[in-house]
């Protein structure tokens, strides 16, 4: 199960100009590639979340630069890049009573799309999704995308 978990990097950031630039500059100079990225805003502050190819290194680089960083386990779900693709996943999650804290998604080059979700009971979610023949993307695969 462990290899199904994706290490997401979350960064606390004040909602003001230039913060993103500081963060991306650190990642660039450490040669870290961002695979998925989102910003959630909540008034004065926001939380940036990203999946990168080298999460541990990204964590260290940002932490050493003084940012408030945390690592969170999320799931990467492969879905069909066609109408109804997301619905197929949400049906499985909904009918099994799995609540999604947050999610973000993007299309890949291969007729597939990647959905990143955070849920409370991650192991239960893995079991449910795999039983429904939904493919989870591993950390190794994320690096290859």
């Amino acid at each position, binding site marked *: 199960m462990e290899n199904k978990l994706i290490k*997401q990097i*979350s960064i*606390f*950031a*004040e909602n003001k100009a230039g*913060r993103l630039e500081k963060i991306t500059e650190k990642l660039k100079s450490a040669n870290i590639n961002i695979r998925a990225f989102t910003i*959630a805003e*909540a008034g*004065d*502050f926001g*939380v940036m*979340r990203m999946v990168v190819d080298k999460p541990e290194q990204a964590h260290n680089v940002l*932490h050493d630069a*003084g*940012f*408030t*960083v*945390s690592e*969170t386990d999320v799931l990467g779900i492969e879905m069909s890049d066609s109408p109804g693709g997301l619905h197929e996943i949400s049906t499985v999650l909904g009918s099994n009573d799995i609540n999604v*804290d947050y999610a973000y998604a993007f299309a890949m080059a291969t007729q597939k799309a990647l959905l990143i979700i*955070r849920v409370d009971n991650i192991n239960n979610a893995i079991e449910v999704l795999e039983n429904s023949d939904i493919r989870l993307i591993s950390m190794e695969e994320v690096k290859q995308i």
Partner: protein
Amino acid sequence: MIEYWEPLIERMPVDELKAIQEEKLKSLVHYVYNHSPFYRKRFDEAGISPNDIQSLDDVRKLPFTTKQDLRDTYPTGMFCVPQEQVVRYHASSGTTGKPIVVGYTDNDIKEWTTSLARGLTSIGVGRGDVVQVGYGYGLFTGGLGLHYGVEMVGASAIPSSSGNTERQIELMQDLGSTAMACTPSYFLYVNEVFKKMGISIADDTKLKCGIFGAEPWSEEMRRRIEEQTGIKAYDIFGTSEISGPLFTECAYQDGIHIWADQFLIEVIDPETGEQLADGERGELVVTTLVKEALPLIRYRIGDLTVIRSGPCKCGRTHPRIMRILGRTDDMIIVRGINVFPGQVEAVLMDIPEVAEHYQLVVDREKELDTLRVQVEVTEDVFSDKISDLMVLEKKVTKALQTVLNISARVELVEPGTIPRSMGKAQRVIDKRKI
């Protein structure tokens, strides 16, 4: 075993102390009347003659002196000795008005230093100790004042002054500092730098205590410092006008001992000027009983405190003042409610998720005062879930509302964004143009 610097004086029965104070007060009023045109005029205007002061209670008859008096008589208009008897000057920076100059005779320096020697001894600092003095040296009284006290008790003084934190840490480790004297906010910053360097005050230094002052700090902040660094954190009190840093807590941390053979203290109602009873909260008023160059009669420092008389567990009989949460100068009025930064600090430090650095920003939007309280989000509390952060914001807002009855907007900010100070921390930014 409790150590004393001057056991006979420090443990003198209260009535004997009062008799000494009475004698000194009586001669003081004659001294200032005869040596200072300023006081002569002040007494005459109030219709007071030195002969009217016959007992300690008569102190109430005397007019107050204030910081404004010192400014108005800049530089030396309140001095009672000619320049050739002055062995040292200090001066305030004058950021809030004209600067203030204070002066000392040879004996004034000796009395000042003795006061500190008693205090340092009471917290177990003496021969064999290495005291790093991180208060500013120079015109500010903090550095030099404490330095002399440290030398008097036979400890080794490191005059590191303020700033240059990496060097401070290097000295602390290489010379084996056992005590550090600085502002509590600077010490927190030093602790941060320790952590960044991957070392700790508890494991990698010989530090056993801190002598913290020059800015108000709360009991909750003390608890934090002691828990995080494993040292004992002692409060030191004083102000340049009455010499400089003068008084400390003893090892029992139960109030600051004010040496009654040197100073007479009262607490007054800041509005009416009426003397309040022991145990009542009010504004501290100090009369210097032994100062020669610049004696002050009923000087209104502006600190709000409570006097507690009666002997301390350490055996010292002199009165104590309880923790000072702020000066009347520091008080901010937000929508008609008096707020002391120290009270806000006490509320914030009682919430474990709130880190030690904070700032209050007062502004005015559309004729309405706003108070923003900025607190830093550390990795210890950052969970990645926005809802958790919102819960924290609400928790702080609610605590400020219930305890202080003020509505403040709590802002979570990134660590390190609130400026670190090498000296006195600037806790309040008032942007109102009044």
